[in-house]
């Protein structure tokens, strides 16, 4: 209280105006973020099927979960996506952005083609890819045309995740646009200086361009990682849990437990572990960034 009195009238007026403008979000933050996260910690310690009131079970949900084969399957599939599909997406986005940054015929048309898949409703593009991967679909049809044996994209467990990775690469457009913007911000004089020092195209890329875009690469890595943890719609529509549960992803398993099995307590416990995993990955990425992200470009 005393510290409030020490505010000048101007400071107090600014504080009131600041709160006035941000109050919708302050309510929104508590309603849609803070409360649900705390509530899910508490629900995670109960058994709750929506019909009867929640029953306290302590750590039973966690014990059950860690002994559940399907749960570990979903963890494995999700980590696979974070560790393989996301880096592939980022490397591809970077290469595409470097290429699009060259002098090209039809440059803006090409940029449109790469970006368009990202704004198409996910259900529509998932359906489209379901048909592309069909035995009679685009890829296997073309392979047959070339005389190559069909690939069991969605029916063999070792092909399902690569198939979904292809779809993930197809929707890399927003990363491409962000990286392209970063590439265009690399100071021209640095490139010229490098060239005068006898650097070739490759040296220039490695020692000038890449260091300059590392902050954006960090940004795309973090958003990509979070995206992969909640990966749902494409897998849900294209393959479901898939053969041998090869595309049973974490978010899908939470969804199944919550809305098919009405095990709200168990689903909350899983959600909390996901929250911890995302927080840990974000922390590790930020900590590691001191070593590989270059902030000289500010």
């Amino acid at each position, binding site marked *: 209280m005393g510290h409030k009195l020490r505010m000048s009238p101007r400071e107090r007026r600014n504080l009131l105006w600041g709160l006035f403008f941000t109050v919708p*979000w302050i309510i929104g*933050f508590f309603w849609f973020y803070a409360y649900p996260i705390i509530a899910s910690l508490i629900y995670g310690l109960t058994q709750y099927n929506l019909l009867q009131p929640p029953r306290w079970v302590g750590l039973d949900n966690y014990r059950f979960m860690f002994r559940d084969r399907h749960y570990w399957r979903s963890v494995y599939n999700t980590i696979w996506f974070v560790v393989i599909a996301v880096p592939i997406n980022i490397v591809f986005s970077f290469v595409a952005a470097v290429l699009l940054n060259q002098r*090209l015929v039809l440059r803006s048309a090409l940029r449109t083609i790469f970006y368009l898949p990202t704004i198409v409703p996910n259900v529509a593009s998932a359906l489209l890819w379901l048909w592309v991967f069909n035995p009679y679909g685009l890829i296997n049809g073309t392979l047959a045309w070339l005389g190559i044996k069909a690939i069991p994209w969605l029916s063999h467990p070792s092909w399902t995740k690569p198939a979904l990775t292809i779809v993930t690469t197809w929707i890399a457009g927003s990363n491409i*646009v962000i990286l392209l*913007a970063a590439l265009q911000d690399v100071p021209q004089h640095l490139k010229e200086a490098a060239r005068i020092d006898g650097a070739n195209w490759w040296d220039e890329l490695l020692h000038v361009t890449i260091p300059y875009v590392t902050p954006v690469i960090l940004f795309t890595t973090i958003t990509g990682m979070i995206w992969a943890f909640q990966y749902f*719609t494409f897998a849900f529509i294209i393959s479901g849990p898939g053969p041998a549960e090869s595309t049973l992803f974490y978010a899908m398993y939470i969804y199944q437990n919550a809305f098919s099995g009405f095990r709200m307590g168990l689903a909350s416990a899983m*959600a909390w572990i996901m929250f911890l995993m995302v927080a840990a990955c974000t922390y590790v990425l930020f900590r590691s960034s001191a070593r590989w992200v270059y902030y000289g470009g500010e």
Partner: protein
Amino acid sequence: MSKATDAQSLEKRLMQPSARMLGMVLSFRKSRQVQRAFGAILVNVVVLTLGVLFALPFYWLLSSSLKTTAQIFQMPPVWWPNPILWTNYIRVFTESPFAHYALNTLVIAAPVTIGTLISGAMVAYGFSRIEWKGRDLLFGITLSTLMIPFTVTMVPMFIIFRKLRWIGSYKPLIVPAFFGSPYFIFMLRQFFRTIPPELSDAARVDGASELRIFLRIVLPLTKPALAVVALFSFIGVWGDFLAPLIYIDDMKKYTIALGLFRFLGDRAHETDWGILMAASTFTLLPIVLIFFLAQRTFIEGIKLTGMKG
């Protein structure tokens, strides 16, 4: 020795005219210009090939939607539908309430877009144009919520909305938009920061209140960014799948994404791909049209969020 000379003379005889040409080509390639032109052609070929690969699924979608069932399952694939068949599109509307689903989605999208604009602009103003105690802390918290996946809060939010008896209505899809989305708050704040603070200061000296500065000075300057937010939020609603899947159970209230999904469930076992592709085309058409009408706005918008804060 003689073998070598033999081989040499043979090579000479065979290669003489072409060797001269090769020499010319080599001397040309030595020149930087040609080398650069060669690189440029290579880059163009690679990017154009990638572009074709990326566009191919769209072409496949369109062409499949115009094929007869017989042509859809023809091997090797038919690249150009013959005859071009429009009945799949007619069947989408006569055999399913797709137009109704589209209307439902608009009924949700309109208030969501308005709510997102009002709350987003207000909160972003509070985070960027006024200096107040606790602002940066609160903004830091706001940024950290960007890292919370929807899946994490999904279950408790369902329980809250169930207690409010909102399940089955559009309220769980609409109401949150009026309380600000961290993504759009961040985007608009980035934009507000580019407006010189002197503009506000001058108005403050003239005795204008913050609300007046917000409405009369900052908002009119923010129209391009508001357009980005409106577009993104509309596209978000149009394509949203998981939230309607959880909250909407009555078929009459389906959104277009949900309708398309259920359509798949009904049709996939009949493998009626023609009609499915027609329905998908109809779902993505408005988005593609909006994109072509407002391409510049889009690209600016993505750059705005990708920017370092």
